[in-house]
């Protein structure tokens, strides 16, 4: 009787185990399929010129296709635009986000902090296309033109809540003894924050920054309203500029350029993947 019961329980246990494994595999399938598909299609398009030359004109691409040659040119204009806009966005979003996160972590009870915290949640949930159209109204219209500045402002707004949250959460899980020890030595709150709490939270904050970057690097919608795109390499920040996700959209819309889609996609995917792995590694190292 009891032996039968035991067998029964063991069988159930096994069934459960198999079920969980099956479902876990099912989750991994789409991920691996996407990676595989992009890798297979995009791999051929990687070459030196793909990263150093700007997008070809439709005419040039058409000629090459007619002659049966691979499409000349690449996505350098997009890579440079992405780097410029991300750089400017990070430059503003990181200090502002960290200071705001520190404020929220330190003043959990103040009404104002609760209000800001609520707004942060709201901002995080705002669809990116809306952030794009708002930036268009606020920046592109008064500046009378699309620009890298406008694009970076849109990306910056999207990054802020992520950096604020990760800073706040990391500071909150630090042991209170650390802050008290700093204050007990006579430091004021600001000094203890800068010299003790923020350095101790560095790993978590840095991970948050990397995740914020990888979150916005693929954003297309807000850039359509702000950066617009540009078919040659440009460094000016007050003129329209290209970005890798914008190029993917452009390539999709131009029948002559469709061969470049997969290379650009693969580049973007690998970039995000690297950032994610890096942030995972840092988080792990920091937790030790």
């Amino acid at each position, binding site marked *: 009787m009891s032996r039968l019961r035991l067998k029964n329980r063991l069988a159930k246990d096994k069934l459960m185990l198999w079920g969980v494994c099956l479902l876990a595999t099912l989750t991994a399938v789409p991920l691996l399929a996407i990676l595989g598909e992009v890798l297979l299609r995009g791999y051929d398009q990687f070459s030196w010129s793909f990263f150093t030359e700007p997008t070809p004109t439709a005419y040039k691409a058409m000629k090459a296709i007619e002659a049966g040659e691979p499409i000349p040119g690449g996505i350098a204009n997009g890579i440079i635009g992405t780097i410029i806009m991300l750089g400017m966005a990070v430059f503003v979003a990181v200090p502002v986000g960290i200071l705001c996160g520190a404020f929220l972590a330190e003043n959990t009870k103040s009404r104002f902090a609760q209000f800001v915290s609520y707004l942060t949640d709201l901002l995080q949930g705002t669809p990116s296309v809306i952030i794009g159209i708002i930036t268009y109204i606020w920046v592109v219209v008064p500046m009378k033109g699309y620009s890298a500045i406008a694009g970076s402002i849109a990306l910056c707004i999207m990054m802020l809540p992520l950096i604020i949250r990760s800073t706040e959460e990391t500071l909150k899980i630090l*042991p209170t003894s650390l802050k*008290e020890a700093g204050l*007990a*030595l006579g430091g004021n709150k600001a000094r203890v924050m800068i010299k*003790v709490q923020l350095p*101790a939270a560095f790993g978590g904050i840095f991970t948050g920054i990397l995740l914020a970057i990888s979150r916005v690097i693929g954003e297309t919608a807000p850039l359509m309203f702000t950066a617009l795109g540009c078919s040659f390499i440009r460094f000016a920040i007050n003129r329209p500029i290209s970005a890798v996700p914008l190029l993917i959209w452009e390539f999709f819309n131009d029948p002559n350029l469709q061969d470049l889609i997969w290379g650009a996609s693969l580049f973007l995917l690998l970039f995000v993947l690297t950032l994610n792995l890096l942030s995972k590694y840092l988080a792990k190292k920091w937790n030790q």
Partner: protein
Amino acid sequence: MESVTPILEFKNTCVSYTKQTMAVKYVSASIERNTITAIMGPSGCGKSTLLRAVNLMHNLYPNIHVDGEILLNGKNILAMEPIDVRRRVGMVFQRPAPFPTMSIYDNVLSGFSLNGIKLSKAEKDAIVERCLRSVALWDEVKDVLNKKGTFLSGGQQQRLCIARALAMKPDVLLMDEPTSALDPIATKHIEQLLLELQKEVTILIVTHNMGQAKRISSKSMFMYLGELVEYGDTETMFSNPNDERTKAYLTGKMG
């Protein structure tokens, strides 16, 4: 006879967490210079709360109120700037808390950097050596001063924290069960160290361990339910306690 101002004096000190309940009730006592005074009592009797009041740690939590007076060299610290008080009253916590991102060297000097005091390299070296020597850590760490403070063992970390507090040359050193997270050997080292240190600093130590109080302190306080039940020479208290509650605690019938 001329009376000397005690280094630290509690006058009707009360600490309350909520309006209805007081964690520390009307404590009055004066602490003698260059002594070790132990604060004993069962869990929740308010001993840590009283200790933390001296360092104005309660200022961090707006719902905690401290009433009465706490005099440091005759001046009421409750009316002073926390930064000023904390520079003169050092604190060592239950768990060793060296700053994890700082080297051993920088940990000892952290009091100065946190106060924005600039020192020359020679001054820094001198302070680090003096403080680490006074906590008997110098010989063990002099070759690894650039390693992180967290690389040390628990007992060494706690001694580093004491060195860090001593670097600011405080008048009073508060210790909140400094050995409760340490093994017996590390505890013994710290106790020997405290007996040495009382020559330069007045020590107020909260302890759960009656043996420890007996071994190192010259004066003892016994607290129960927020009240200071008894305060006097440690020897007298252990051999002939005045109050029934003290007696019950010391003989293990309570606590």
